[in-house]
């Protein structure tokens, strides 16, 4: 359970997956790296199986919608023994498909189903890509930027009245 310094851990990470990932750096105490979709599965399994890294704990898998630049998937794994986090960001571009990680982490199934229903990112090879939270007949992907909150579309914003237009506050 001894704590490895993030710099030392990031050296180990770049030693291990230096060729597969780009600009491995340490920000706010965590190791960040960019991986392109084709190699994400072997990067994650390398991080998981390497004895000196042992990142066997899938913290989360989140989608981010960058509108024009397409989608990004952030996969965060944590090593319980070395007490260090590796955050992999996978930018997908517009076609938004990515190989599934359920082969490496069985727990990825729920995370990927959530990203699929919220963003429309499809993970090929996913065992059952049904919806996790939303009812079956729900169409549209709510967490996309172009999906407007229904209640906020119809109801006018009470703060919109003059006098002078002050900044801040919840709009849109």
């Amino acid at each position: 359970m001894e704590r490895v310094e993030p710099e030392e851990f990031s050296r180990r990470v770049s030693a291990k997956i230096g060729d597969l990932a780009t600009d491995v750096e340490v920000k706010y105490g965590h190791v960040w790296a960019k991986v392109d979709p084709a190699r994400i599965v072997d990067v994650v399994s390398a991080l998981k199986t390497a004895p000196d890294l042992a990142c066997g704990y899938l913290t989360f898998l989140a989608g981010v919608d960058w509108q024009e630049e397409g989608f990004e998937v952030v996969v965060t794994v944590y090593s319980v023994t070395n007490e260090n986090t590796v955050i992999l960001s996978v930018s997908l571009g517009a076609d938004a498909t990515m190989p599934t990680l359920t082969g490496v982490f069985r727990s990825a199934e729920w995370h990927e189903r959530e990203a699929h229903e919220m963003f429309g990112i499809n993970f090929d090879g996913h065992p059952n890509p049904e919806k996790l939270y939303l009812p079956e007949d729900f169409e549209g992907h709510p967490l996309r930027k172009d999906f407007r909150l229904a209640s906020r579309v119809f109801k006018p914003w009470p703060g919109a009245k003059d006098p002078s237009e002050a900044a801040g506050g919840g709009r849109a």
Partner: protein
Amino acid sequence: MSVAENRVDELVTREEIKTLSPGEAKRTTYGIGLIKGLGITLRHMLKPAITIQYPDVVDELPARSRGVIALKQENCTVCMLCARECPDWCIYIEGHKEARESVAGKRAKKFNVLDRFAIDYALCMYCGICVEVCPYDALFWGQEDNYSEHDVVGLTHEMDKLSQWMYNVPPPVELELGAMGPEVKPLPTAAPAKEGS
């Protein structure tokens, strides 16, 4: 504080707190645990109950408790800050401008006059941002807490009802020893107001 507290001190005190490791806890001799359990319930039976009879005996609320938002109409200058900051969009304000001469012969200055100030308590989540953000101290936390209605429409309290709630707004509470208010070093210049989408 509440009635229940002063009765609580009579709990029997146990000096050293035993720490059983999970292994030890599993090997205690059969039957002892059952008897100790019975001992505890009996001990509590012989002690006075610590609950209070709610409708007859009412516990007084602490000063900061968030009962209802009360409005002091005189202070409100219709600056719309609270309506803007409210996350649930549940404050509806209407006002108009009036020109009034503060001093005879001087040029009439324009004042904002409040026509309607309503809070829809069906939407409100009692976060208190409006009370906090109001620059003119027009909104306060009243301690009135049973204003339930038969119909949800009744939950939108208009201006006059909000002013009624001013009756039990407690005085501001004394801070704990060592409290020194917010740090007030010169603030970095705030980024220019960016228009929302």
